């Protein structure tokens, strides 16, 4: 069958290229999620702070990084970053174009975007924590950082699980946009294969299925996290 030759690992098969693209997608997404978690937490804290300038900064960040199309942010980081690197290179006497590594630029760009989304998720989760429980922590003299780590974070994670799952899925799909940096991730590989063979439907369906494979792994992780966090919850709505 033609399909099996085209998708296989033989001479005429696209298997190797596509699986490599898939691995690259996974790596970029994981890296960007990690970057986004750190920055997102800081932004969420800023938005919840009672200092007006912190709130304003946080709001500006989330407005811009959520409001501007992802593609443009990737362009700015990649080309902006690259010209910075090139300028530094020239200052040190190295001629010509010095690219920012595609992987780094891509992960950073998607990470910055995902930070804005994660910040909103964390903020919503924070608001769901009963106030009294935080008061109980302050009343025993628990310092703010410890209260954050022991009382707030565990509960934020509990309420944030579904939202984080959403962000993960978003970043997975945003990672498809960084093909403009020349990174041959899953989406670009799919499109190249489709354009080269003119088998559009087949490769798009295969690409879609491979994204679903990635999702199904993550779904497992999120489901087990959710089940764990439900243990302490009174039997409530929206959980099965």
């Amino acid at each position, binding site marked *: 069958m033609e399909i099996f030759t085209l998708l296989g690992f033989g001479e005429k098969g696209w298997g190797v290229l596509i699986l490599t693209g898939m691995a690259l997608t996974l790596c970029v997404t994981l890296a960007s999620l990690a970057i986004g978690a750190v920055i997102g937490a800081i932004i969420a804290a800023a938005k919840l702070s009672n200092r007006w300038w912190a709130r304003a900064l946080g709001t500006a960040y989330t407005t811009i990084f959520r409001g501007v199309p992802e593609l443009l942010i990737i362009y700015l980081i990649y080309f902006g970053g690259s010209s910075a690197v090139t300028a530094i290179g020239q200052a040190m006497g190295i001629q010509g174009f010095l690219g920012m590594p595609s992987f780094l630029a891509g992960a950073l760009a998607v990470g910055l975007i995902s930070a804005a989304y994660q910040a*909103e998720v964390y903020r919503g989760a924070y608001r769901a924590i009963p106030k009294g429980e935080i008061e109980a922590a302050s009343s025993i003299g628990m310092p703010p950082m410890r209260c954050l780590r022991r009382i707030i974070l565990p509960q934020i994670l509990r309420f944030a699980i579904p939202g984080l799952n959403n962000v993960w899925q978003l970043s997975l799909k945003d990672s498809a946009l960084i093909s403009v940096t020349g990174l041959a991730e899953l989406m670009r590989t799919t499109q190249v294969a489709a354009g080269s063979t003119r088998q559009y439907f087949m490769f798009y369906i295969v690409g879609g299925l491979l994204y679903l494979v990635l999702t199904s792994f993550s779904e497992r992780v999120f489901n087990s996290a959710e089940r764990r966090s439900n243990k302490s919850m009174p039997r409530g709505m929206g959980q099965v």
Partner: protein
Amino acid sequence: MDFPFLLSTMKALLAATPTTLGLFSLSIFFGGLLALLIVTMRVSNNIVARNFAKGYIFVFRGSPLLIQMFLVFYGLGQFGVIRHSFVWPALREPFVCAVLSLALCTGGYSAEIFRSGLRAVPPGEVEAARAAGMSGFLLLRRIIAPIAFRHALPAYSTEIVLMVKSTALASLVTVWEITGVAQRLISQTYRTMEVFMCAAALYLILNFLILQVLALIEHRLNRHDRRPAERKPSVLSAFFGSRA
């Protein structure tokens, strides 16, 4: 800076803005309805409904919108059955297809967002409502939905803003909205950064306005968390005195 060029670019992009807004508002509306349906199935006790909802969310959230849209628009038309059925006159239209795939996709995302809102509803308050004889739609409408919506709003605003940007894909199916027009200009002029900057400014303004409205709603809905002191005294009470 080539101002005449920027100006003509901006003009072209502004002309495409109504298309973007139309795609956006219709897909948010239908996607929202769909999400309500899906989330109801997702939390129901009926195992068939629940698994259908799980599957739906899995597929539509897990695969790229680009691929979904491609398959809906170009894929469905490959089947003679569909081409000769009553849905074809609608599916034939690019705009309908674009709204359809945007709504299908946001339906999956929003359903999960709504579900996380449901998880935050204090069970005690639901019990109080049941004890008062509320159930089904009434319970949902009066108690669960208002509380869940408050909790889900931050995440839902994100989804809404995301939808504004997702409409950019509609040019794939020949609906020429802002991004599509921008890309067309780029392939005519190769002035990538300038055109993209104009488009970005436009999206930023749109999203800023939308986020502003959403923040206002959030502020209003969270009255119960604020102290009465923060409630602005009404002009009338200054004249007539307040009863408190």
